[in-house]
């Protein structure tokens, strides 16, 4: 009986191709809007979450904002991990832009002065050579570790360990090249060069340490580490406005919540268009029932019971909406592929979203189809037959 009803529904849809297509259009557009928008936003959310994980939630960055106090020394910073159990690594940082030269080629890059712990905090790995070591820091050595983009810009290749470059006129020996870390929301080390902190102090006339990064022993200890750092700095400066301790993950978490809100908002807007599509189905089905009063009368006269008629119209609505949902899903996939290619980003459609979309369109078919189907089923055969 169900199979027969499906066959009749398909026959009826095929017989009214234009009308069926127009009915489906609402659902097609609704499903497309939902799936495409949700996929784009959730792809963005995923990339933020990826950042969050790759960056390590245990990183803290500290800036001393006031110059009224005796600055911190390099020794203060490198001593932090020994002093507090919660802190795994700490490295001072001094960042300045500088002009780099190698032969005739020159480029501008951010120069980061720091110590060996910087590599551990930021999870840096090298594709060749070595990182800055403590003797480099104590000897103010003129050595540099360059990011892969910098190496590429200056030499056109990345195996540049042993080469000499000039940074604002001073010669540096390249002792290592960083591995390509990829692009990231928080900037990338690819276009930085890293030199010993003491060397940077001399070059850029920096006394003491005004900013440093630290990593908690583990991600569970990040709050303890933050508290310990704040306590340490408070005891030194006795002024909570003199410094700021920033937990990296909080920044990303707030970005994450922004993208989540966006996902909900877009999903909501798209959901409204789906609702409109559903109302369209109901509208057309009601018109269709009125238009087919005579057909219903004939079917009832020759032996179709209420259930049959109900099922026929309900399945028709279900088939229209499900087909619309599937077509919408196919078009969404196509659109996302085109967008991915055009924008050079991977927008993926999750199986969950796809499944939900199909399920939702089916639900719309049933919800908005039940009223017209019921109306058809209840029609008395004599009156239906009398209608011209």
């Amino acid at each position, binding site marked *: *009986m169900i199979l*027969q009803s499906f066959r009749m529904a398909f*026959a*009826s849809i095929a*017989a009214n191709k234009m009308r069926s297509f127009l009915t489906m259009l609402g659902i097609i557009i609704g499903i497309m809007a939902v799936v495409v928008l949700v996929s784009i936003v959730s792809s963005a959310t995923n990339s933020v979450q990826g950042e969050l994980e790759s960056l390590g939630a245990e990183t803290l960055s500290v800036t001393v904002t006031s110059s009224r106090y005796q600055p911190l020394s390099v020794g203060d910073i490198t001593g932090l991990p020994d002093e507090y159990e919660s802190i795994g690594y700490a490295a001072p940082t001094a960042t300045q832009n500088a002009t780099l030269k190698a032969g005739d080629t020159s480029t501008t890059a951010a120069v980061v002065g720091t110590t060996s712990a910087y590599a551990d905090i930021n999870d840096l790995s090298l594709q060749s050579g070595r990182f800055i070591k403590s003797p480099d820091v104590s000897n103010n050595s003129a050595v540099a570790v360059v990011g892969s983009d910098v190496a590429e810009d200056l030499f056109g290749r990345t195996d540049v360990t042993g080469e000499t470059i000039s940074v604002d006129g001073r010669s540096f020996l390249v002792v290592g090249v960083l591995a390509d870390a990829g692009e990231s929301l928080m900037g990338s080390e690819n276009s930085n060069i890293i030199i010993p902190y003491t060397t940077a102090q001399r070059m850029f006339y920096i006394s003491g340490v005004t900013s440093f990064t630290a990593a908690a022993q583990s991600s569970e200890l990040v709050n303890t580490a933050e508290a310990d750092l704040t306590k340490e700095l408070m005891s030194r400066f006795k002024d909570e406005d003199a410094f700021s301790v920033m937990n990296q993950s909080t920044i990303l978490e707030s970005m994450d919540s922004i993208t989540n809100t966006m996902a909900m908002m877009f999903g909501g807007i798209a959901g409204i268009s789906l609702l409109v599509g559903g109302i369209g189905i109901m509208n057309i089905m009601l018109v269709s029932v009125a238009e087919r009063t*005579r*057909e219903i*009368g*004939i*079917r*009832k*006269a*020759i*032996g*179709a*019971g*209420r*259930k*049959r008629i109900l099922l026929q119209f309900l399945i028709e609505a279900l088939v229209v909406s499900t087909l619309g949902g599937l077509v919408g899903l196919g078009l969404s996939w196509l659109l996302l592929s085109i967008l991915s290619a055009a924008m050079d980003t991977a927008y993926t459609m999750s199986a969950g979203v796809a499944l939900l979309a199909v399920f939702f369109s089916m639900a719309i078919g049933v919800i908005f189809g039940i009223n017209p189907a019921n109306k058809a089923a209840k029609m*008395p*055969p*004599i009156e239906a*037959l009398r209608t011209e």
Partner: protein
Amino acid sequence: MIQMKNVSKIYTIGNEELYALNHATLTIRDGEFVAIIGPSGSGKSTLMNIIGCLDTADGGEYLLDGQAIEDYTEDELTRVRNFKIGFVFQNFNLLPKNTALENVELPLVYQGVPRKECRERAEKALIRMGLAERMDHRPSELSGGQQQRVAIARAIVTAPSLILADEPTGNLDHKTGAEILDLFHELHANGNTIVLITHDDGIARKAGRRLRILDGQVMEDTAS
């Protein structure tokens, strides 16, 4: 076998009760060819609706094959129509978007007959009506006479106990009408019970038996 005893159907218009059928009594035996004649407004349509189980009576007793048709729900009436009655209407009442074959199959589909058997039986009925070449045509591609033949094929495909024809020649020209009537006589000769409703005395005269309905009452018509 149709037995009606004092069947009444009352319509209330305002405060006035209008008897569409006023204690109508009639018996039609198996294998009879009965014409029911009456002018419009005589209760003809109401009688046909009740005989055809499209409607139930307000009073009296109606037995179809010994089965009392009263207080039936709509779905029970539907089953009775499906299995026991074959309808032939004045305006054919075929589904316009379906082919002749699909139209004829439909009552069998509703009976739950397997698909293959539906097809075979529908084809046989259409061949019997001389439409072997027209099975895949839609009603709009058929002449009036051919459409009525499809409708008759649909009526006989379930082998019903009663074929109920309501002015079956009303929309046809004289020659085609005569051909359709011949078909009914042929069906009658093969043992089918036929009730033909008409206002045309000429057509009624050819039936084996005539019943006249006037003001909701049924009487035997003996004049010839």
